[in-house]
């Protein structure tokens, strides 16, 4: 393996755009992707063994193929099935790939690790058949397997629409879309729609393909019911803070429940790099703090896409280009004037689209009632089977940090390394102790970020000859 000027972690929309831009500036670029194929969640698709008809391909299929092809043509090194399991000083990356652990130190780093569906805990959410909306979309689109025969999609915001469309295409019946907000709340945000014409076309296409699907506005999921797997969903009407109204509970017969309550940024690698984070009160999450060139607080480390704010694929690609330009400038592949010239297009695109993304985040971000489903008996840490009650008693006994709760209860210590429960534990800690969510002390991110065989770690090798 050669040395690289720029390594991009994550080959989704932001990462591919970043790699293309940096490579187009003359930098030697590698993309590191944990999956078997670039594209991230947005451009995920069925394997080539499926012989699909054009009508069976997703709306973004063609642009995904084009981007992958461009990356391949540019001579960019694409390392798929490659996990970044650790990040150490001066951009030293530890990779796990083909059973071996490899050290790589690029001159600049672009982190584009994306986001995952926000976990929401409520009674019954560990039953087989309760899944994230992204998970339902993935199994329907990449496997052509129905998430269930009868599917309830519960969430807030527009992501329920493409998911419902994909799930319907897989042959499942959409029992209902359960949307926490009401259309009357959308009106004050209508101004942000001005100029976002492609969004109108998308919305219209979804509306057309989902005609006849019942939508329960102002409702949320409160319980998954079943013995051994989901047999029904219980939903309830909510007020503006998403607290369930007494007596409004209703049972929907369904064998799958898809949760679409927004996304959490995958900031672990950036955080381990030492990048400063910024609290977003609307998304109720920590994102990577960046300047307008997508530079993080750490010299030579750039970030792009959903880890800098949930804003969708178009913003992610604009940010990817900006990060690619920033990294190319950092390694000296282009001069300052050339970098400025290249920035103009994507910078304008980004600020135009951000207005819309901001409005969506304000409108559909989680509200306090979403967390009232965590009854004492509800599992919160799925890996270690720790309940909300376990965590509450831990806090009552004096535990004042997520790390402390982890030490006492094991919540967050399992194979997912807290990705699923961390936000839920923080929420519980905040409520039980009265400390504001943004003041809750986070657990430190430590390698390995995902499980790696110990013998591989112990025999780590360098990817490059000493310079």
């Amino acid at each position, binding site marked *: 393996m050669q040395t690289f000027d720029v390594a991009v972690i994550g080959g989704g929309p932001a990462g591919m755009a970043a790699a293309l831009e940096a490579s187009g500036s003359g930098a030697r670029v590698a993309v590191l992707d944990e999956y078997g194929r670039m594209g991230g969640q947005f451009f995920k698709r069925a394997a080539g*063994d499926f012989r699909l008809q054009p009508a*069976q391909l997703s709306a973004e299929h063609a642009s995904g193929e084009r981007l992958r092809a461009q990356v391949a043509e540019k001579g960019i090194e694409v390392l798929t099935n490659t996990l970044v399991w650790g990040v150490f000083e001066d951009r030293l990356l530890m990779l796990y790939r083909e059973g071996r652990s490899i050290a790589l130190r690029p001159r600049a780093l672009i982190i584009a690790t994306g986001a*995952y569906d926000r976990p929401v805990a409520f009674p019954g959410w560990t*039953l087989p058949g309760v899944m994230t909306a*992204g998970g339902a979309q993935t199994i329907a689109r990449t496997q052509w397997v129905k998430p269930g025969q009868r599917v309830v999609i519960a969430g807030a915001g527009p992501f329920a629409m493409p998911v419902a469309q994909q799930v319907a295409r897989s042959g499942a019946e959409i029992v209902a879309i359960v949307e926490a907000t009401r259309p009357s709340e959308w009106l004050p945000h209508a101004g942000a729609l001005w100029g976002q014409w492609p969004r109108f076309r998308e919305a219209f296409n979804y509306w057309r393909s989902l005609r006849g699907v019942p939508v329960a506005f102002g409702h949320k999921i409160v319980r998954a019911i079943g013995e051994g797997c989901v047999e029904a969903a219980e939903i309830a009407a909510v007020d503006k803070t998403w607290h369930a109204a007494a007596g409004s509970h209703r049972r929907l017969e369904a064998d799958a429940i898809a949760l679409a309550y927004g996304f959490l940024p995958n900031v672990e690698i950036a955080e381990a790099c030492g990048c400063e984070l910024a609290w977003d009160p609307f998304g109720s999450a920590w994102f990577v703090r960046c300047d307008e060139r997508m530079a993080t607080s750490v010299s030579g480390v750039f970030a792009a896409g959903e880890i800098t704010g949930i804003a969708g694929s178009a913003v992610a690609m604009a940010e990817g280009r900006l990060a690619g330009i920033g990294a190319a400038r950092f390694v000296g592949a282009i001069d300052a004037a050339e970098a400025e010239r290249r920035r103009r297009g994507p910078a304008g695109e980004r600020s135009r689209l951000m207005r819309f993304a901001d409005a969506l985040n304000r409108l559909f971000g989680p509200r306090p009632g979403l967390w009232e489903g965590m009854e004492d008996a509800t599992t919160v840490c*799925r890996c270690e089977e720790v309940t909300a009650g376990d965590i509450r008693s831990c806090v009552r006994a004096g535990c004042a940090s997520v790390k402390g709760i982890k030490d006492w209860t094991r919540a967050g210590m399992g194979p997912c390394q807290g990705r699923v429960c961390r936000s839920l534990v923080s929420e519980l800690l905040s409520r039980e102790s009265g400390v504001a969510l943004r003041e809750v002390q986070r657990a430190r991110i430590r390698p390995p970020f995902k499980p790696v065989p110990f013998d591989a770690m112990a025999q780590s090798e360098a990817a490059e000859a000493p310079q």
Partner: protein
Amino acid sequence: MPRADAGLRTPGIERGAAFAIEVDGRPLRAHAGETVLGVLWGAGMRSLRLTALKGEPRGFLCGMGTCFDCLVTVDDRLNVRACLEPVRPGMRILTRQGHADL
């Protein structure tokens, strides 16, 4: 093991070449291009493992390798994420009871 009413594979889709795999000692049909999760879920298998402490059934949550809920044993490899593992002819899969060594 609880099963859905019928298989959940979308009918009328032209899949890759069919072959047999072994799941908990029994043969199951799979297609090139599918993941282990696709095959199991498509066959109507909902519980991919029972948890170590409480013995609760689990399926999959995220489908993208983040949640580690869909762990199965594949050809004696423990804790393989079913959602990320491409299926191969002759693969032996054990849906699991509790945690194996990590």
